């Protein structure tokens, strides 16, 4: 993964002194914290900032900054429900006008990204500022395969990273997210991820996507796909189920943003070995057919059979097939066709098959971003399928 250590090469344009911005720093190592504080003092007027962190901050090194202690949360690779609750409570207590939440590894976030995130929610009329990271083609694959296409097709949002770990929030957005988060913390799901885009779209709040450049993305402490994918996908499917009445209505997708990160459509930096992923898919095909047949219609099973017999070089999963598979799994999650843990476990080999296909397509010359856009477009095209099946799940489905 490409890393970028931002150098303060841009002349700072401090925000107005009378605006108070609460900056919530999630759990991160001390050297990262100091680097983030340096970037913040470079980007903003010190008197407009209120820094909140659970760790003991080096207050002596930054005498102009105001600090406030935040309740300790468990270190996580993403923003959790507990972080959103803390952010709103601290902002309300200190009369902040906006909140900037920075996740682990925020020291690699560019100065302009920090400023733009804050500006968007302080004076530009946006309620949610969300960064668009510039990641290597083979990074953030779960986001490209599942989170972005589903969020775009169902919630009509072009935000590229729905599960971004740095956010700018207006007070009403922070309040709304805190309300959702409190319900999760109330049932001991402090570490559950939240879906700010879905909340903002459902509430009719303004969203602004900010080009954030490259950033070091924190990885889960146990980078085990079998553990993390069910958590993330389960949370997303549950949110989709909860907002079914909202997304079933047809909505116009906003026009595509002219992103400065168009260079993301670059060729891959290295060709990855897809053999382990294909082996995982083939093993699953021979063993999990009985479970897949409970979830997927015969047409999708036929598509998987074709994939099973395809050579590694020619391995391509059609975008429409992947879209339908995901929609069928969302539907099975809602209908509880099988145990939800089993269902999400059975999705993992199919996701690996998509990943192998994605890498093959990139190796053939198509850019990662083009393929991800094609996948998202397929999800949009297949939206009537999930709406129809959601409303009439017992209808004949070949």
């Amino acid at each position, binding site marked *: *993964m490409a890393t970028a250590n931002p150098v303060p090469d841009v002349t700072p344009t401090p925000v107005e002194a009378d605006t108070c911005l609460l900056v919530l720093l999630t759990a991160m190592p001390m050297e990262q914290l100091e680097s983030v504080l340096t970037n913040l003092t470079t980007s903003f007027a010190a008197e407009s900032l209120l820094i909140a962190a659970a760790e003991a901050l080096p207050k002596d090194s930054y005498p102009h900054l105001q600090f406030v202690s935040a309740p300790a949360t468990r270190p996580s*690779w993403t923003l959790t429900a507990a972080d959103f609750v803390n952010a709103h409570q601290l902002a309300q207590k200190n009369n902040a006008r906006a909140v900037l939440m920075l996740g682990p590894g925020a020291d690699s976030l560019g100065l302009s990204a920090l400023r733009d995130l804050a500006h968007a929610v302080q004076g530009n009329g946006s309620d949610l500022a969300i960064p668009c990271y510039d*990641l*290597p083609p*083979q*990074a*953030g*694959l*779960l*986001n490209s395969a599942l989170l972005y296409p589903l969020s775009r097709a169902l919630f009509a949002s072009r935000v590229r990273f729905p599960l971004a770990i740095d956010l700018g929030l207006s007070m009403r957005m922070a309040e709304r997210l805190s309300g959702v988060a409190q*319900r*999760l913390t*109330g*049932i001991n*799901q402090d570490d*559950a991820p939240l879906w700010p885009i879905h909340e903002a779209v459902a509430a009719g709040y303004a969203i602004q996507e900010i080009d954030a450049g490259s950033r070091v*993305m924190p*990885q*889960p402490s146990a*980078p085990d*796909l*079998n553990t*993390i*994918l069910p958590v993330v996908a*389960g*949370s997303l*499917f*549950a*949110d989709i189920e*909860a907002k079914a009445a909202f997304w079933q209505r047809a909505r116009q997708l906003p026009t595509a943003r002219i992103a400065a990160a168009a260079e993301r459509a670059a060729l891959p*930096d*290295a*060709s*990855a*070995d897809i*053999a*382990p992923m294909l*082996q*995982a898919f083939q*093993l*699953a095909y*021979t*063993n*999990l057919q009985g*479970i897949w047949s409970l979830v997927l219609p015969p047409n999708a099973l036929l598509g998987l059979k074709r994939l099973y017999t395809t050579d590694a070089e020619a391995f391509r999963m059609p975008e429409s097939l992947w879209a339908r598979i995901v929609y069928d799994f969302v539907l099975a999650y809602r*209908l*509880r066709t*099988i*145990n*939800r*843990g*089993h269902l999400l*476990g*059975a999705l*993992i*080999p199919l996701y690996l098959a998509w*990943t192998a296909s994605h*890498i093959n397509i990139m190796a053939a010359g198509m850019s990662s971003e083009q393929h991800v856009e094609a996948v998202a477009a397929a999800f949009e095209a297949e939206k009537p399928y999930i709406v129809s099946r959601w409303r009439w799940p017992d209808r004949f489905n070949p």
Partner: protein
Amino acid sequence: MQNALATILQPTASQAAQTLYTDNATIWNHMSDALHQSLYRVLSMLISILPGILAFFVALAVFTVIGMVLSAVLRRGLSMVKFDERMTRNRGNADWTPLTSPTALVARVSFWGCVLLGLIIGVSAFDASYATAATLPISLLPYLTHSVGAILLLIAGNLIARFLARSVLIGAVNAQLQYARFLSLGVKWLVLVLTAAMALDHLEIGGRVVELAFGILFGGIVLTLALAVGLGSRELVSRSLESHVDRTGEHSTETTAASASESIRHF
């Protein structure tokens, strides 16, 4: 002389017929008496337990009606206080969420609770009347109650076996174990054998034979699984150890495939 003696000693045909008739009539009378007595005993037993049977059906019917009324009241009351919406807001994405709405679930639970209560009260009334009228042994009744327990055991065992088999299958496939199906089948049969043994023990069938057979079967399956996993996962263990060595820096050489797969980031 001999002929004359034979003639004297031989009974006449009419005498023989009369004796036979008398014997048959006696047997018939005995059989008839026995049948009458048996019929009398059964009928008197039925008459004595009839109030118990009636009490059983009356208790069941009354509590079913009470359950229906309670269910309807609960359904209406919970709908008025918007119970479903409150539960949906508070439940998050828990895995145990029910298929039906919480209101319907509460209503159903209350209805079936009442039916179960009626069943228990009815059975206890029947049991009381049976005990007082137990002049004849009815071995079928206790056996019937044991059969219900055994059937419930079998159903629960079957559900648990299917759940565990599916969990093991998916977990093993995602861990890329080639013998995933075999492992899953082994777990399924372990639970099924255990369930069958428990059901037979509950029915008091077989006695020590069942215990012995269960021990042999269970031990056999565990040994087979242990051997299969032990022999089959040698490569897995060695791969795991190698990757551990790689992580701790003791192993300096890295394969091309490993470095390539590291360049893929799912998150």
